[in-house]
């Protein structure tokens, strides 16, 4: 198990390294002058040069990359003496760190990844992402739970009543759910439940998990979660329905299901005791894949519902050419993807003892 874990970890780290390289190159060949974005169009040449030096834009690309990686890496080298050094241990940049050892002027330290500062607000990108992350995680987890619970449930129903009216109806709904684009569904859901039926539902068209109350300050408003969850969950739900259905039907035709029936088990016990566990592996793959992309791709939904999250942050940053924020969120999402896939691999091994720990 441990060896399995480490082999997955190594391949995960390689993926992340690849993403770092691609992200760095991509955003450094894009047109646009970051110094101008930081200072505005009317800045004088001297200020622009100061900013360019601060951003390391006066160095060759390779050196810029090394500096970038040094900023990102949890294990990095910082200069503790020379405050003009580009890797000066500035607690304003790096926050707190743990010194491992000193080499001359430099120290090898353990620190949090430094994702640089936003061009627009000069705020630390890491802090901005951490601020937006809970909203996104809450939204995607609730959407996925909604999709998984109803998707698997409806999928089982559909398989059991294969060919009957219930099955056809569920399939019809799931095909519809799959074919409606999420931005359209978002607007539709917001308008229908938040505006037209507002008297009944009492739900707002837009809103975040936390809202500012003039008297109490910040507080949670969970009812705002309902509509975005519904919208975001429709597509995964539709896919999960179909996957559960076909996978369960396939498993139900297996020899060991016949054995279970010949034992005298009730149909209920056959399905939940013998078939479901075997049928859920492909469903699990789909769910994990969706979870990653929900974290990254709730963009439209967050935008439509005005939900404060990583997606909205990214879109806003893209509009402003605020590259550090975009780079930071892309990196974060890829790390999430890797982590989720690792977790799923481990889960597979638990669900199906035949998955060998190679």
């Amino acid at each position, binding site marked *: 198990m441990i060896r399995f874990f480490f082999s997955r970890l190594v391949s995960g780290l390689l993926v992340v390294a690849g993403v770092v390289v691609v992200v760095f190159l991509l955003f450094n060949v894009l047109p646009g002058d970051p110094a101008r974005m930081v200072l505005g169009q009317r800045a004088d040449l001297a200020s622009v040069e100061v900013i360019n030096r601060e951003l390391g834009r006066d160095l060759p690309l390779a050196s810029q990359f090394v500096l970038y990686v040094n900023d990102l890496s949890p294990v990095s080298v910082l200069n503790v003496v020379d405050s003009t050094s580009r890797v000066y241990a500035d607690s304003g940049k790096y926050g707190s760190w743990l010194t491992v050892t000193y080499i001359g002027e430099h120290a090898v330290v353990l620190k949090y990844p430094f994702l640089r500062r936003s061009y627009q607000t000069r705020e630390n990108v890491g802090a901005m992402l951490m601020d937006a992350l809970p909203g996104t995680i809450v939204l995607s987890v609730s959407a996925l739970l909604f999709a998984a619970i109803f998707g698997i449930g409806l999928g089982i129903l559909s398989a059991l009543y294969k060919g009957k009216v219930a099955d056809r109806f569920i399939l019809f709904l799931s095909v519809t759910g799959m074919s409606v684009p999420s931005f359209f569904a978002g607007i539709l859901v917001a308008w229908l439940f938040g505006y037209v039926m507002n008297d009944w539902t009492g739900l707002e068209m837009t809103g975040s998990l936390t809202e500012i109350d003039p008297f109490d300050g910040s507080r949670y408003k969970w009812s705002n979660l309902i509509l975005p969850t519904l919208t975001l969950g429709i597509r995964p739900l539709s896919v999960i329905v179909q996957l559960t259905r076909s996978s369960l039907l396939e498993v139900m035709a297996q020899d060991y299901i*016949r*054995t*279970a029936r010949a*034992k*005298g088990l*009730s149909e209920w016990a056959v399905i939940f005791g013998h078939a479901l566990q075997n049928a859920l592996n492909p469903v699990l793959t789909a769910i994990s894949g969706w979870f990653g992309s929900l974290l990254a791709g709730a963009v439209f939904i967050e935008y439509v519902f005005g939900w404060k999250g990583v997606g909205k942050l990214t879109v806003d940053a893209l509009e402003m050419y605020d590259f550090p924020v975009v780079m930071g969120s892309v990196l974060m999402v890829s790390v999430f993807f890797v982590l989720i896939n690792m977790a799923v691999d481990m889960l597979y091994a638990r669900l*199906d*003892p035949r998955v060998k720990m190679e």
Partner: protein
Amino acid sequence: MDQRTGMVNPLLEVRQLAVAFGKSAEQYEVIRNVSFRVEAGRTLSIVGESGSGKSVTSLAILGLIRQAGGRVTQGEIIYSPSGGLLAQDLLKSDEQHLRTIRGSRIAMIFQEPMSSLNPVHTCGQQVAEALMLHKGLGRKAAMAEVVDVFRKVRLPDPEKLISRYPHELSGGQKQRVMIALAISCKPDLLIADEPTTALDVTVQASILELLRELQAETGMGMIFITHDLGVVKHIADDVLVMYRGNPVEQGKVDDVFNNPQHPYTRGLLACRPSINLEKPKLPVMSDFLDDVANPVEVMNSEKVLRSETQTRPQITQVDDAVFSVRELSVAYAGRKSSLFSPKPFFKAVDGISFDVYRGETLGLVGESGCGKTTLGRCMLGLVQAASGSIRFEGSDLLKMESKQIRDFRKRVQLVFQDPYSSLNPRLTVGQAILEPMEVHGLHGNDANRKKKLNWLLERVGLRPEWQHRYPHQFSGGQRQRICIARALAVDPAFLICDESVSALDVSVQAQVLNLLNELKSDLGLTYVFISHDMSVVRYMSDRIMVMNKGRIEEIGEARQVCDEPVSSYTKALIDAIPD
């Protein structure tokens, strides 16, 4: 007691059973007029080839036919439980009542031990489940009982085995777990559907032995379904022969074997090659029966019959070795036990040396895992050898350049085991056979290749106009003919047949074996014939090589290896054949 006759009811009596599949408008009957009785302590064997309806019959008894997509349209299944309870018609019982009988009073063992156990539950759980359900035992008590039952079916180390998963067991062990599951609630009736077909012959013998002992001990009735007449003779008291859904013959096992009445039974008895008899040519079903399932097959087999010269091809030159294999080893890497330990190797083929002479058939026999398939693949260059040499017509296969290898591939072809999966379902038969000719650029142009295609199809007994059909339109035997035609498309001198008839019914098997022999003498081919079935190998081969655990146990003239085996392993292998 039956009030009318005053006779004791048999354990199970099936009367005029008919089962149909499909929707009511276009339903078709798969069995009809099936009647038989099973007495306590006796074994009824239902014999037939694929499609004869024998499995359908057993599922109907258990009331599981609806789940398989069928429906009982007629008949009665009267079950008289032990202990003097009232007889009941299972077909009139509701599902709830049937569930108390299933697995408890009437239990079943299925054909495929590999797939009949749930891969995600431990063996112990799966047996305990039945005990908890029918005997109301708690989990602990049930597990303790499972250990007892496992011991009874002679599974090694039962305490450990209950927490193992099915994939960690061998095929024979899995079938023992299935038997344990079936007998755990001490049923009145045990239905065994081809329980030994997927197993090695020595394992089969031990499983049959076990079933007989269990029956003697518990006095249960048994329905034993099989296609293998050798097994029937071994285990059954009574026989019911079925053919395409109809019962054709029924009686005591000795009567049926010694004096078969129906031509189909006679055919079935004759088609199977026997280890003791040498026939120049196998009889086929059409010799006995005019109404054979597929009129096409009849046409071919008759043609084959008439054209056959009644002598077997003899080896012409014994010193002319086509293949000569020396000290050949093939190893597969195993799993490392820890990070730093060296990689363990499993030697599938371990230092083997032998020759194959031109014009002969070398039979390669052994049980699963003995390395015979690996050896065959290695001789084709499909598997890398670890050491040793393979010389084909003088040049070393392991040192060939890629051009030479392509040439070699043209000379040596393979016929696979499973005719169902070895043909691409999206290619027509014509395309499948033309493809190797095109790859090797044979016969100049397309027109010539087409001509060759027609000739090949005719040669293997198929109609040339069928070249536009897809594989699923053919029966198993026809597909194997297509596979043979495809192998012959590049004019090879050498064919390796890897279990090429194992997936076929005996009557079809006989036709394919005859075809192979005929092609061999007409085209001057050399065969390596790989099979687990000693009788088939004996029939086909001039010389036999017995393999065990990657080594050669014995090699010699077919007659000598079969009649006077030197090695004890060969002896055990031959003794295990139920004849």
